[in-house]
């Protein structure tokens, strides 16, 4: 029996790796994508393009603007001289932020009246606008603190002392790169599994496979092993790039990482094989792969937190294996979690994986055309 399975596994690997195009697709893109996405996926703004419309000639206005020109996260694109210049600049997306200082700014400040600072943001991407607004606010707050200190004014009775745990500089790259590992692993399992059964069905070789002495369970193992092995290798390479190249800290337990990875691969391969065995043609298999992969990624909590979703959608995320794997990745990478803290994430993936694999195996025989 073992020999039969080994022969089948060998055949599956050959089918995947024999075609040089298919081989290249499996090896090169995930690594290139990790590098590119690793740099792309961040909510930290750099070089926010901003414009200044300064109607005030006082020193205070210049001091405030120095706070912007001195900050790494801002890049001056234009100095305006009329109100009418603002709209075209923002409309054309040349400036994300326009700082408007009115003519009485310095005079108001000196007289102890609140000086108005109007700042316009391009809200087309509301998240970027909100982050930029936080950046501007912190520069204005710093200016206020300095002014209060320099002029001996009474400060506010209480101030906030903020600190972030696990990620002191709030680098969102640390948050996203573990997530990218999960996404790319999911993509690789889809690549290997989603079209295999459908291709054999289309070419008629699956019927031949069914009349051999191989039992459906054995066919299932034969189809599962390649996705599993390639997924483990791929994830290991990606893990090395993430820690060595991007220097994301890995403070948790490595065995817990691999245990989670194994369960995730089982559920990913299971879903892929299920899709594949449901599909009559490769076109249908591809459609199924997308209908699974796209929601799995977007609802996994990768970019938008699950807590922000409505209750009903949160229920749907419970069957998304990527959801659990992302939590494991982030906890293992950043919080140093071991097995104990992750049990709640392990068992749902085990359930999803075994249910999907069982169903796929059953469909091998019961869905014939």
């Amino acid at each position, binding site marked *: 029996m073992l020999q039969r399975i080994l022969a089948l596994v060998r055949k599956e690997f050959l089918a995947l790796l024999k*075609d040089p*195009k*298919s081989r290249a697709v499996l090896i090169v893109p995930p690594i290139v994508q990790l590098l590119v996405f690793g*740099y792309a996926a*961040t*909510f*930290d703004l*750099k*070089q*926010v*393009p901003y414009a200044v419309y300064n109607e005030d000639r006082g020193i205070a206005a210049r001091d405030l603007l120095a706070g912007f020109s001195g900050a790494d996260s801002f890049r001056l694109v234009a100095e305006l001289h009329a109100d009418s210049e603002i709209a*075209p600049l923002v409309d*054309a*997306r040349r400036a994300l932020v326009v700082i408007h200082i009115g003519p009485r700014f310095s005079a108001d400040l000196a007289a*102890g009246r*609140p000086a108005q600072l109007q700042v*316009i*943001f*391009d*809200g*087309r991407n*509301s998240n970027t*606008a909100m982050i930029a607004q*936080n950046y*501007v*606010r912190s520069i204005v707050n710093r200016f*206020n603190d300095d002014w*209060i200190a320099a002029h001996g004014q*009474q*400060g506010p*009775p*209480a*101030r*906030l*002392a*903020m*600190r*972030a*745990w696990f*990620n002191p500089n709030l*680098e*969102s790259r*640390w*948050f996203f790169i573990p997530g990218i590992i999960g996404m790319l692993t999911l*993509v690789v399992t889809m690549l290997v599994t989603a079209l295999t059964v459908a*291709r054999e069905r*289309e070419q008629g070789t699956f019927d031949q496979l069914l009349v051999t002495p191989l039992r459906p369970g054995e066919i299932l193992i034969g189809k599962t092993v390649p996705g599993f092995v390639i997924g483990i290798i791929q994830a290991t390479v990606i893990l090395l790039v993430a820690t060595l190249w991007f220097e994301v800290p890995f403070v948790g337990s490595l065995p817990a990482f691999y245990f989670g990875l194994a369960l995730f691969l089982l559920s990913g391969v299971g879903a892929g094989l299920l899709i594949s065995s449901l599909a009559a*043609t490769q*076109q*249908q298999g*591809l*459609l199924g792969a997308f209908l699974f992969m796209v929601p799995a990624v*977007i*609802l996994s909590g990768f970019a938008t937190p699950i807590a922000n*979703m*409505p209750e009903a*959608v949160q229920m*749907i995320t419970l069957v998304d294996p990527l959801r659990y794997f992302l939590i494991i990745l982030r906890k293992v990478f*950043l*919080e140093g979690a071991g097995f104990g803290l992750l049990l709640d994430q392990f068992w749902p993936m085990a359930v999803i994986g075994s249910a999907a694999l069982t169903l796929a195996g059953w469909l091998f025989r019961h869905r014939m055309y």
Partner: protein
Amino acid sequence: MSDRGGSAMRLRGLVRKEFLQIVRDPSSIAIAFLMPIFLLILFGYGVSLDADHVPIALVAEAPSQDSADFMATLQGSHYFAPRVMASMAEAEHALREGEIKGIVRLRANFSRRLRQSDGAAIQVVVDGVDANTARIVEGYVEGAWSTWLTAQAADQGRQLKMPVDFEPRIWFNSELRSRNYLVPGLVAIIMTLIGALLTALVMAREWERGTMEALMVTPASMTEVLLGKLSAYFVLGTGGMLLSVAMAVWLFEVPLRGSFLLLWGCSSLFLLAALGMGLTISTLARSQFVAGQIAIIATFLPAFLLSGFIFDIDSMPAVVQAITHVVVARYFVAIVQTLFLAGNVWSVILPNALALVVMAAIFLGITWRKSRKRLD
């Protein structure tokens, strides 16, 4: 003249053949119509960056009227779901377990320090793993803090005076509703998938099944074969696009401030580019299996991460910014976000539409060149 008529007839026949194939395997129709409905409903309702009822812990080490006042501000805000905890140790444990996203701590000397000249410190700890949510929580706490300061000052008959009064104005989306920018972006992502999925396998399928050779022996030229495929799937894709826009406007109530006709025109250009990309994949791969694999790798994740849909392109390193120029969705995301939220801004639309034309021409050109009548 007679040849022109013959060509039109052949084209009609080819389009008819494509439509018959589409109808026989309903997966194409599912791609064009079911996928946008399913994905838009799921994401339009599901995806949001607006944090609400964030669980946080409130720790007052020596409860007093002052600390109760401050906490009431946080408890009254719909941004937070605060839980009062007795000690910092308990709160830290909850943070580590992931039950809460932040801690606001008022030390035992809060009331006394409040009345001293250098003021009291309010300690705020946030869970930094999700840096974006952490920043949003910080911003909300800051908002509550300044509300509290203003109220305090008003109670004492004063006005709160900060030297500079920061007055943000958010254009195009004044209430910062994240759905307003996510839904148009999703339309662009979904259309990328539809365009590429519809055509990614069609050329490869003909080669694999040997029907391409059959087509070659007919008088139809390769250009006509390609045109036949393109026009059939273009009609299908346009249907999916209209459906998505209708849902964005009527179901999700995203304002469409620009002209609908302009949106239609730009979408058609984009659809040509997306279908062209699918045809290129299909032609270069020659086998459905490899074409499917390339489609999985090359369409979704690049469109999701590199189009400016979620992550700001200007903040990426120069090399990555250069790479984003080959992502078709990038141009369409810029157009759709502008047309929906800002209006007909030609300085954004023209260059991006031009880029779409170039991309469409490149993809269709490659397909046309690579699928001459030859056997190999």
